[in-house]
């Protein structure tokens, strides 16, 4: 009796577990042509609002041409972009195509043997049209596809400048002293000189990539400090924090800089809450819409440092799309990425986002606004480096983002910020001797 009822319960329990275990199996249906399902972990919307809508359109369009290929796009969030893909790498299963920020993050996964080079699946003739492929070239291979180019420069509110009697630089670029003088004038006129957001830490990271870079001579210069041959406490690397600190102390930033995220800071500029802010092409486009086409101007970041990179631009592909090692259809996945670089898609990309496509075939005449035209010229002339891409992820998170917050929230001095860089680099080197080896061998 009892044994029998016990068995009934056990069976019930097992059934429940089986039921839940079998909940979501997709039946394999046979068809004439082999059906290919591709999963694409996609990130771009935060850089370029409109990017999601463009991707939806592109997937639909691709389906028309290749009815056997289904692309399942999974939008990714900035906060978990790295950790989600790291989990997939640990699991050795996940998307066929994934997104990571260029250079450091991409190569970090290359070294974990999680990627196949896209140059093995796409002809050199095609790839030569893609811009900034150098950001992901390693061991003679190109590891991912660029899609767009963004750079950041300073956007300013013309009306506020006029009100405070500030004239924008004739050459398009101020010296640091001119910049500070302008800030003081704006402040005196009761205007917030520079509006930004650093709750998420990216505001500070942009200062590093943009102003911090000016003191350096090359990316290898930075690498020497990362691998421990030089000290981050050297003002060469971290001296610029004093200038940032001075600006914060003088009240040149909005008071709520620490309760806004980076993109909320740009939004506040669009609302007319400050005279200057960092702007990507997309953010500038938004400001032009919100404030009026003739109300916004752009200038290059004032010159602070005297390193060889002081004049280098910062345009980057930002995000890279690449093929994963475990994908069973790398060729089909690569074909889709090539499709995204067809003329029609490149034009559509620009129409959706206002950000230029990273392709030599992109028709630059589409950019008609003089302000945005100016940005494009800066972004495509001369060498371009986004310095944040040349940091190990842990150092970016623990030192770059954190040191910026330290200064913006005034919870530490510039010396504390420098010490944090040094300490975090040491921690990273100790915790990741294997990664350190890769960084040591990496010839930039």
């Amino acid at each position, binding site marked *: 009796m009892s044994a029998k009822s016990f068995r009934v319960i056990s069976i019930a329990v097992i059934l429940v577990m089986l039921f839940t275990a079998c909940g979501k199996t997709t039946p394999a249906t046979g068809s004439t042509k082999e059906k290919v399902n591709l999963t694409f972990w996609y990130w771009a919307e935060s850089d370029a609002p409109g990017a999601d809508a463009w991707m939806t359109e592109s997937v639909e369009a691709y389906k028309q041409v290749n009815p056997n290929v289904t692309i399942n796009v999974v939008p990714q969030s900035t906060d978990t972009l790295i950790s989600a893909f790291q989990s997939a790498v640990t699991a050795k299963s996940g998307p066929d195509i994934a997104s990571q920020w260029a250079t450091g993050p991409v190569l970090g996964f290359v070294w974990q043997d999680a990627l196949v080079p896209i140059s093995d699946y796409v002809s050199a003739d095609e790839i030569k049209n893609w811009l900034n492929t150098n950001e992901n070239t390693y061991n003679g291979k190109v590891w991912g596809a660029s899609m767009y180019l963004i750079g950041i420069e300073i956007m300013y509110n013309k009306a506020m400048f006029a009100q405070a009697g500030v004239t924008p630089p004739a050459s398009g670029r101020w010296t640091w002293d001119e910049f500070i003088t302008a800030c003081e004038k704006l402040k005196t006129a009761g205007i917030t000189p520079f509006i930004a957001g650093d709750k998420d830490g990216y505001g500070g990271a942009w200062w590093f990539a943009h102003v911090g870079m000016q003191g350096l001579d090359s990316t290898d210069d930075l690498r020497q400090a990362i691998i421990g041959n030089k000290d981050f406490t050297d003002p060469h690397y971290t001296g610029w924090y004093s200038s940032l600190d001075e600006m914060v102390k003088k009240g040149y930033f909005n008071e709520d800089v620490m309760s806004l995220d980076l993109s909320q800071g740009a939004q506040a500029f669009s609302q007319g809450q400050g005279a200057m802010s960092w702007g990507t092409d997309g953010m500038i486009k938004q400001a032009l819409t919100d404030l009026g086409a003739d109300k916004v101007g752009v200038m290059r970041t004032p010159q602070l440092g005297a390193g060889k990179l002081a004049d280098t631009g910062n345009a980057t592909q930002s995000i890279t799309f690449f093929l994963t090692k475990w994908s069973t259809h790398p060729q089909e996945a690569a074909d889709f990425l090539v499709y995204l670089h067809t003329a029609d898609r490149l034009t559509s990309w620009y129409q959706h986002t206002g950000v230029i496509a990273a392709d030599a075939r992109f028709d630059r005449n589409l950019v008609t606004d003089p302000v945005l035209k100016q940005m494009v010229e800066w972004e495509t002339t001369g060498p371009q480096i986004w310095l944040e891409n040349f940091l190990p992820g842990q150092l970016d998170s623990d030192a770059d983002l954190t040191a910026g917050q330290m200064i913006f*929230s005034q919870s530490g001095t510039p010396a504390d910020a420098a010490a944090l860089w040094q300490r975090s680099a040491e921690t990273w080197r100790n915790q990741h001797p294997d990664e350190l080896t890769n960084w040591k061998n990496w010839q930039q």
Partner: protein
Amino acid sequence: MLEKKLSTGTGITFRKIEPYLYLAPATILVVLVFLYPIVDIIRTSLLQNNPDGIKTFGFTNYRLVFEDPVFWQALGNNGKLLLSVPILTVLSLLIAILLFEHVRGWLVYRGIIFMPYVLAVPVVGVTFGYLLGLNGIFNTLLRSAGLAFLAQNWLGSVKWVLPSISVVIIYREMGFGVVLFLARLMSLEKEILEAAAIDGANFWQKHFYVTLPQLSGVIEFFVVVELITMLSWVFAYVFVMTGGGPGFASTVMEFYIWKHAFAFRSPGIASALAVVLLMVTTLLIVLQLRLRRRSLEEGA
């Protein structure tokens, strides 16, 4: 008659194994979800990285953890969160006693005050993110009350971020405490309280000397549950509201473990951190065992 004899015949062995059959399904899950992972993290925490990529056994991960100031800060942050448990408990008790005093509309109040406990943590976190912004409602109220000097960057300042998170946790958990205490109060015998009132005890004397001792059991239960919450269940609040910042000011152990395990690719460090956290929670286990002794005495 015959059936009974038969069952006793085979019963001796069955009787012996019967309790274990009842325990079996739970045991399988517990081994899978708790015991295997604990053994595994201890092993992983002893595997250290080397420049050539080959892993060897040793205590390096622990040394690196103890040398890392962020680890101490994260542990300290959990400790500071524990400090909000007394505040939470006292507030819940106070509201429960007020409701118990047959205030008009107490059922409605109870319904409203319990509601935050039903809200999802990310929902609470996102909403409070806006309310506690520098130009959020909280500061707006302070400013319009002429208290502008009190307005703070609640989630963006190193000094205020942890207290602010505590307030949000208290906001959500208080409903649970109120309902729990109120239910216990209502099961008390009326005569005792009435006798105290007749003896001339005032409101506070009555509750302090008569009510509180009666509630000690349920208070202890609540305190232990909340201590566990502050040590082991605050990830969602931190992740949604601050991402551990500014700096590391709101980084808690759970968040730091997650970061090392899934963002920094350092399973060894993550495991060593986890083992240390495990050691700390053993302190709570001691508390728990006291609770168990009480409940055993009651049960027996």
